[in-house]
């Protein structure tokens, strides 16, 4: 199954790319997605979303999901 991963703001700059497309065998948790794309970097001060809604870190991905990781928001 395929999932799309996006990065925003300072995280996008740190990652050096806007996103990734992952091919995974079975549903994995958001934390596992992060481990894969970051090479096991610690999860510091990050938020995540799944299909454009805030997600829990233990939520499981499904085929076709759009996942995103980003720092705390600072709009308004």
């Amino acid at each position, binding site marked *: 199954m395929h999932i799309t991963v996006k990065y*925003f*703001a*300072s995280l996008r700059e740190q990652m050096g790319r806007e996103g990734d497309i992952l091919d995974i065998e079975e549903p994995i948790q958001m934390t596992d997605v992060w481990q894969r794309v970051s090479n096991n970097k610690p999860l510091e001060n990050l938020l995540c979303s799944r299909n*454009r809604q805030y997600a829990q870190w233990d939520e499981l991905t499904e085929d076709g999901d759009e996942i995103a990781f980003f720092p705390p*928001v*600072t*709009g*308004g």
Partner: protein
Amino acid sequence: MKIEIRTQDYDPWHEISSYQQQMSPGSYGATAVFVGTMRDFNEGEDVEAMLLEHYPGMTEKQLETLGQQAITQHELLDLLILHRVGEVRPNDPIVLVAAWSAHRKASFDASREVMEKLKSVATFWKKEQLGEGARWVEKNTPG
């Protein structure tokens, strides 16, 4: 209700005035507005410009949801939310929230609540351009 993310500079007072035209005259007794404007100074440093990033698709949906909730909860007659993205200059308006209701309590409560929710949940990020270098804003001023 109108919710828009703008890539160009806008005049908040003109936007309100123009949006109000389509409302029924004499129907609203109260309008509460908040406009957030870019300052040329933040956390002790001069800021020359700002880059405002958002999550296309997600941010719009968040604003729609919190706007609808405010209308229902406070029985608003109407609501307007604009938010700027892209490169912003000092004195440019960033966010506009305008709430119309029959009596003042609802519009006051709603405009403030929408602003607080917008600032705490909506996926926008600010990067400040200083004289030398740039920095991502790490957190918002408390409400």
